[in-house]
């Protein structure tokens, strides 16, 4: 897919520009790709809950709870956005939290007086499975990106000044070019003498008497 897109984008390149012949190993790891897939799943489910809540409430036997289903749809979309972002670990964990909320709500609907109790049971089983998958994905993404357990390296010997700081300090002082100057230092420009400061003196027009 990506190779095809790179071929398509060649229309924007000039003849002498490099063009992809064969793709090689990628920085994108399976955990991240799976996280993104969860993101798209969240977006799809969220849109369904947001746009067709009655279909779900009828199937689950909880008519009248359309507002709650819509709210859960918005939550799913928010999780989806996070899963598709570079903070995808947070997205996956937010999905796990959402799964818990879904299970609590489904548990409340799993009653003997609910004629669709069987459907609720199916939904509970499905959400439980998804929650496990979400938790595994979240953990994999986090472990892929976290700073590993090794000790932090100490770079306190890397001065960047081969002859010592003393030799380099101030070696370029006074070398700021005129067009890079911001303001004259306030102390030099406007000493608090109580009289017109030297800085503004040359701006005063001398009007002949």
């Amino acid at each position: 897919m990506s190779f095809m897109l790179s071929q398509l984008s060649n229309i924007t390149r000039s003849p002498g520009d490099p063009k992809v012949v064969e793709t090689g190993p990628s920085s994108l790891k399976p955990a991240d790709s799976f996280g993104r897939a969860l993101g798209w799943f969240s977006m799809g489910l969220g849109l369904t809950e947001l746009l067709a809540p009655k279909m779900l409430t009828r199937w689950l036997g909880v008519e009248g709870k359309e507002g709650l289903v819509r709210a859960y749809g918005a939550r799913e979309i928010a999780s989806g956005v996070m899963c598709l972002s570079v903070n995808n670990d947070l997205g996956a964990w937010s999905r796990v939290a959402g799964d818990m909320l879904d299970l609590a709500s489904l548990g409340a609907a799993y009653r003997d007086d609910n004629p669709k109790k069987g459907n609720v049971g199916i939904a509970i089983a499905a959400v439980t499975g998804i929650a496990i998958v979400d938790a595994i994905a979240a953990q994999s993404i986090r472990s892929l990106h976290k700073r590993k357990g090794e000790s932090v390296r100490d770079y306190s010997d890397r001065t960047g000044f081969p002859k010592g700081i003393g030799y380099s300090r101030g070696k370029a002082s006074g070398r700021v070019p005129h067009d890079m100057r911001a303001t004259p230092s306030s102390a030099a420009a406007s000493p608090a003498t109580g009289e017109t400061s030297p800085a503004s003196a040359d701006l005063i027009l001398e009007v002949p008497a």
Partner: protein
Amino acid sequence: MRALVWHGKEDIRYDTVTDPQIEEPRDAVIKVTSCAICGSDLHLYHNFIPAMLPGDVMGHETMGEIVELGPEAKARGDLSVGDRVVIPFTIICGECDQCKRGNFSVCQRSNRKKDLAEKVFGHSTAGLFGYSHLTGGYAGGQAEYLRVPFADATHIKVPDGIPDEKLLFLSDILPTGWHAAMQADIQPGDIVAVWGCGPVGQMTIRSAILLGAEQVIAIDFLPERLSMAEAAGATIINFEQESVTERLTELTDGEGPHKCIDAVGFENHICLGQPDTILDRFKQMTLTENDRGHVLREMIYNCRPAGVISIIGVYSGMVDKFPIGIAMNKGLTFRMAQAHVNRWTDDLLHRIEDGQIDPSFVITHKEPLSAGPEMYRTFRDKQDSCIKVMLQPA
């Protein structure tokens, strides 16, 4: 040839691509000996910079040897096949009004897709290597070969006998840190605060010391970066462990730093103790804001009245909750730009040769080009105490 190629968000691949060809009379092709991953490459890695396309070759910190020269590049006399050159990240014509003024990063002629840039920025800026189609869509230098447009102007000729490690960063981070310090107008006796101790921040700290700053205060949260800043004599603030405002107040007797430098840009760290960073990330994720402005807010709040704010970290678009009222009432001066690399490199090369600075201190990982995709991840996730990655083609 082999190259690191952008295929989408977090998807950089070590691909086989066609070799670059001379297109214009002023072009050259170089055989890359060394290149590096820049912090600003991570904005592309995260797909925050618009107009990247699958198949774009990454990289704008490159050096190598000239293997082919266009007729005009040759005729202008300064370059020959076999010359060793560092390639600045900005492509410059050397002839337009802005180039003549030394404002190389806003060269008026080098962006070959200037219509697109004019629509977005109002005016075109310079073409850049490997940095989206907004800046020309030029192939980058994380590759075995690189075509250099306007090569007779877009190069820094370097002598033999000095290792690549010491010269490579003339392409970007050294002159960028230098530019940040210059546009901050650092004078002897100044107290300078630098936000961000990544590679550019490290170069900025050392530039400030070269310019005679009395005290440099370095702000970050990663211990390895802070230790590197401390090595240059900076006073450090770990913003995850202490309040930046309280510490700056204490270190400056309540006056604030004379000069504040942003070497972070729009992807600042998200920190529970700094709630605006969370709000910004939420807005960025929901496409209601492009850039996260925490560092700008903190600089404006803490800068000494009549002080200078220097922005060298990359911003891409709109930022919210920008405290212009505080800035205006405190009489702050703002300076910002992409570095005008070639303006500074002769001087900096002399300082490297003289032993005033050795930029190789920043390299923490030196790997073959083929390890590029892994190193993008390592660098982004700040694993293995990674601060700067240098890559070399086989």
